[in-house]
């Protein structure tokens, strides 16, 4: 895959005001029998609003644990996690569910759509738990599907959709409650390279045009290059944290033009 440098529009920098995520000296260990497995050994970093971050690292590097903590699915053993300025440690289980519902959008590696449930209903799911009225749920879900270019397939079941389309439904689901951050865990893990770039195109589009903060776990270098910042984990600590110079950023839409389509 060729990398094509492209200048980043100024809007991203303008919207990137203030840290949406700030973590301080995060530690996490699991007790397994007599052993204590240290997954995170003191992680401190900030992610500003409007950033597109790739979190990388080998398996066991602690990146998944880090993402689970960011997603409020897991709690750190020690350290602090401030989401939009609030310390998450103070929240109850119910509060955390509400944060996951309202402020965080999830995209999983295996799509994790509900089978025998239409694309629209899958997209609606988070809105269902925020007790929105039926009409509002439909409206928002259709908007979200429109953003990922699947409005015309809203009545399709996951089994009738391709992998890329299923992942786009999953992204729409992540967007339906208009969250502050989108957390994607290996979003291209189950996809071929062209579809992967298509997903990256959607991410870049959402990041640029909607100012959405995206944090994406990946172990593929050529996927990580679509993000503007790459954080590499190793043995539970941040090994490197660097921003792609604006001129070196890869534009997914441009890459797609040079890639063979399925028909070729």
């Amino acid at each position: 895959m060729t990398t094509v440098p492209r200048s980043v529009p100024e809007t991203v920098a303008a919207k990137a005001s203030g840290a949406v995520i700030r973590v301080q000296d995060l530690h996490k260990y699991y007790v397994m029998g007599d052993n204590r497995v240290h997954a995170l050994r003191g992680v401190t970093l900030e992610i500003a609003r409007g950033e597109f971050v790739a979190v990388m690292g080998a398996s066991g590097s602690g990146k998944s644990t880090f993402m689970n903590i960011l997603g409020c699915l897991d709690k750190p053993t020690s350290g602090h996690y401030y989401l939009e300025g609030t310390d998450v440690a103070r929240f109850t289980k119910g509060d955390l569910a509400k944060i996951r519902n309202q402020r965080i959008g999830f995209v999983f590696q295996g799509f994790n759509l509900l089978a025998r449930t239409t694309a629209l209903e899958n997209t609606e799911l988070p809105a269902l738990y925020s007790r929105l009225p039926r009409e509002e749920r439909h409206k928002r879900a259709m908007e979200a599907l429109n953003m990922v270019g699947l409005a015309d397939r809203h009545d399709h079941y996951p089994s009738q959709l391709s992998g890329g389309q299923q992942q786009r439904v999953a992204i729409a689901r992540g967007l339906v409650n208009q969250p502050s951050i989108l957390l994607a865990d290996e979003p291209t893990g189950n996809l071929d390279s062209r579809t992967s770039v298509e997903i990256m195109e959607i991410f870049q589009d959402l990041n640029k045009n909607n100012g959405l903060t995206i944090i994406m776990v990946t172990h593929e270098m050529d996927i990580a290059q679509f993000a503007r910042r790459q954080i590499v984990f190793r043995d539970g600590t941040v090994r490197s944290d660097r921003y792609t110079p604006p001129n070196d950023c890869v534009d997914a839409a441009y890459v797609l033009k040079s890639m063979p389509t399925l028909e070729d």
Partner: protein
Amino acid sequence: MDFLSTMRLALRALARNKMRSGLTMLGIIIGVGAVIAMVGIGQGADRQIQDQIAALGSNMLFVGSGSVNRGGMRMGSGATKTLVQDDAAAILRECPQVAAGSAGTVTGAQVVHENDNWNTQVYGVEPAYFDIRNWPPSMGVTFDQSEVDRAANVAVIGETVRKNLFAAASPLGETIRIKNLPFTVIGVLSAKGTSAAQGNDQDDAIFIPVSTHQKKLTGDTWLRFINVSAVSQAASVGAQGCITALLRDRHRIRAGQDDDFFVRNLKDMADSAAQASRIMTILLASIASVSLLVGGIGIMNIMLVSVTERTREIGIRIAIGATEQDVQRQFLIEAFVLSVIGGGIGILFGIASSWVISAQFKWPVLISPMSIVVAALFSMAIGIFFGFYPARKASRLDPIEALRYE
């Protein structure tokens, strides 16, 4: 998530596995159906016994001449000659709980009409007897007080006696001979059937005024029994106490000595019969309840399987913001819907099967609204009780583990 959405979700989840949901429901259907049918049969039997006892005469007390001890030899009931007409009058006068009374005596006799004859019991009673026993004539009339006062030779005959002496002919105005004494038949009593308590044919009897019986038939001055009716069923116990005290006093029985009479309360007999049928109802219902319990365990089992199967779905729901209560409610409502639909069908099944039983075996079946309401509530309770543990298990899943579940 709101209730309506959860309900829709539950129905859809159940529709997804129609065979499985159907079989799970079948457990509840059979359970509820069995309880409804069994309770229906029990209550039907109870009602039949109550009806039979009511037919004996409501609020009735029976005072009989009792045993007497003559030098260590006890003579058996009916042996004493101490119960007399004045006792009957005193009971009516002294006991406020008593509404009516009829002195009575009885003897066995051969009865003749033209070429036919028949051996039967001849009772001497007072006019009140027919009201106390709740026993109206089907033909003619019963005798009145003036006929008792003048010891008239009139007879009211039972249905069995009519059949044997008159066959198809009308007995009214005919003369029958009892111990060679001529009596005019003035009425025929309606058929009462076999008595529930003793099993004898109550219609095989002739009734004449007690005065006629004593003066012309037997020459006895004492009574065999007094039929008494209390003012209400509740008052019959008080009446029993009053009569006992009164007769002990009149017969000069000292404290510690045995009564020379006995007072039987029909309410006691009714109660013991009702208790027997109630025990049967409880027994039948508890056996049927076992199948309901098994049905509930079936629901629990299926819900546990369902939770395991849908671990990933639960993980997704928790990750995107479902609270513990949301997840718990989802599975609880699923179990609830299963048991309520099953319970509803079970009620119809129970009514239908008890209808078939009553038609097939000619058993009286009584489906009370109460048993339907109880069955409906019970099946709801089963859904909640047996759905609770699986639902709780689902809500406690760790989303990270659940999302990784294959």
